[in-house]
């Protein structure tokens, strides 16, 4: 069942362009109105229970899209349906079905314990005290909040605060959660913990995840599908694993010798040395030109090999490559 259905979504921002050669008064009355298209006619849908990565370089239109989907900003053109509701018209009804986490902003009350923020937000969503208490207990177990739930928020570490932010955004049991760079600034341990939680809420609580992140580990570990946007347009919409298959063109092969390498043979087309010395050879292979089987046959014939390690290109370099091309 479609939870998000977007058709022809467009957002234009107007701004006044000033003539640098003229003065303030001239520009006050004669500034030219220009239009910047932040989101350009995008169409896609998201099924209930999916985990989507909505990614792109800075200024691509990701956050603008999220803000239109969550009813914060008005679209210029196009239609948005979230569980049958139009965000701008049905903002209040929609708010009960969505949760939002903006990695760079906090909804928590700094001087008070997390529970107070939870009571406030629970009351906002018409929950009674008994319901809120029950939900706090559930979320505390799920997010492991008990160790700091009674501490003032300002005394929490960034990782704890992000867990608290996410728990808070789930207080009213939304069907869909928008995560805008939720792991920004976190250390590797905190990031891993958070990613595991996202997977858990997606699988166990059946919450649809709509994630934007610049961290490819987030995307790879959480999301089944990847939508890449640039200059306001969708350039790729594919399952994450297919993205790897379709766009990973380079493999790196690391070879160690039985004793030591003496000769370095000329390589076939599509292969090139990254480094070579008597203890180790690293070769880059373009799988568009030559397949891995041929490469291995060639290498085992030409070299005295003890061990071979084949590494795929990381999702990060795949995405970097896509950003550079588009």
């Amino acid at each position, binding site marked *: 069942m479609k939870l998000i259905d977007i058709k022809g979504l467009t957002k234009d*921002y107007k701004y006044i362009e000033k003539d640098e050669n003229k003065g303030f008064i001239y520009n006050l009355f004669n500034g030219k109105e220009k239009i910047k298209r932040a989101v350009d006619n995008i169409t896609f849908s998201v099924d209930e229970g999916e985990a989507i990565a909505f990614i792109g370089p*800075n200024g691509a239109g*990701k*956050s*603008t899209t*999220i*803000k239109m989907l*969550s*009813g*914060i*900003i*008005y679209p210029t053109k196009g239609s948005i349906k979230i569980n049958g509701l139009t*965000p701008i018209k049905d*903002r*209040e009804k*929609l*708010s*009960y079905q*969505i949760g*939002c986490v*903006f990695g*760079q*902003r906090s*909804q928590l*009350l*700094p*001087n*008070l314990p997390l529970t*107070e923020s939870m*009571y*406030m937000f629970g*009351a*906002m*969503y*018409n929950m009674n005290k008994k319901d809120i208490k029950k939900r706090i207990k559930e979320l505390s177990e799920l997010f492991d909040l008990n160790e700091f739930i009674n501490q*003032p928020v300002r005394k929490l570490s960034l990782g704890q605060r992000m867990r608290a932010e996410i728990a808070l955004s789930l207080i009213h049991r939304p069907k869909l959660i928008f995560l*805008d*760079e939720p792991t920004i600034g976190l250390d590797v341990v905190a990031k891993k913990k958070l990613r595991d939680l996202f997977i858990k809420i997606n699988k166990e609580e059946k919450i649809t995840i709509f994630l*934007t992140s*610049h961290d490819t580990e987030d995307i790879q570990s959480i999301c089944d599908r990847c939508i890449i946007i640039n200059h306001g347009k969708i350039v790729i919409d594919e399952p994450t694993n297919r993205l790897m298959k379709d766009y990973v063109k380079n493999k790196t092969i690391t070879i160690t010798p039985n004793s030591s390498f003496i000769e370095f043979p000329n390589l076939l087309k599509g292969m090139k040395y990254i480094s070579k010395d008597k203890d180790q050879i690293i070769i880059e292979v373009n799988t568009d030109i030559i397949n891995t089987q041929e490469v291995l046959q060639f290498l085992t014939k030409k070299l005295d090999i003890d061990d071979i390690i084949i590494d795929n290109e990381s999702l990060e370099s795949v995405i970097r490559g896509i950003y550079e091309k588009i």
Partner: protein
Amino acid sequence: MKKFKFSIEVIKIFMHNQIQDKSNLLLDMFNMFSRCFIVFLLYAYIFKLKGGVVNGVDYKTTMYSMFIYFCIMILNIRRIDQLIMNDVKSGSVELYMNKPVSYLFITFYKTIGKGLSSFLIISIIGTILMITCLGVPNLNLSIFIPSFIITLILGQILGLIIYSIVGIASFFIVDNRPIHWIVDKFVMILGGSYLPISMFPPLMKKLAYISPFGAINFATSTVYDSWNYEFIKRIGLQIIWILVFVFILNIIYKKAKEKTMINGG
């Protein structure tokens, strides 16, 4: 009813949040009492020069009027426009724009919650000190108590609305401080901050009476004799101004929401 419960919940939580930082309360108290002390000394001298009565009003009544003004300042509802401007500038407005309760209402409750605890504590201590130092004011308590509470609440609601309109201006212009400055000075002057209302020349008195800026602080007039026969008119005026400004606020807020622009990553 649910929205009322929510408003109480938010006000309570923000009162609690504010009171965690005791230094705020102490600073508010110091600010209030030092202002009162300076103004009271100054006017004691002026009233002494004028034989104890200015414009038909005595020193004690005038000082109670100014005391009410200073107490209202502790409530500080005018900070709402800065809260809105900061939210718009920082983009934090997005945190509340997609909630079931209007962003404006949440900001109203936050503003009240932030000032209410200091207001209550300082007003009570201040009243005890005033009675100890100046004596009980000559008031018709059966009129004063209910009309004071009503006019205080209506005035603060009107203030919240007017200052919210100033705050919402930041959706359209980069910096709303010049507008805040103009509105704030009108409210302060016509509310009796610099000069007690009893000393106003007739034109200023009329302006304080009929303008919405003066109506925010009608509570400062409750200690004057004239209040006993004009309180119904004044409360009526406050209600009219509230309705007018709610209408304006609605239109402006609707336009502001359409204009919302928050930068992303």
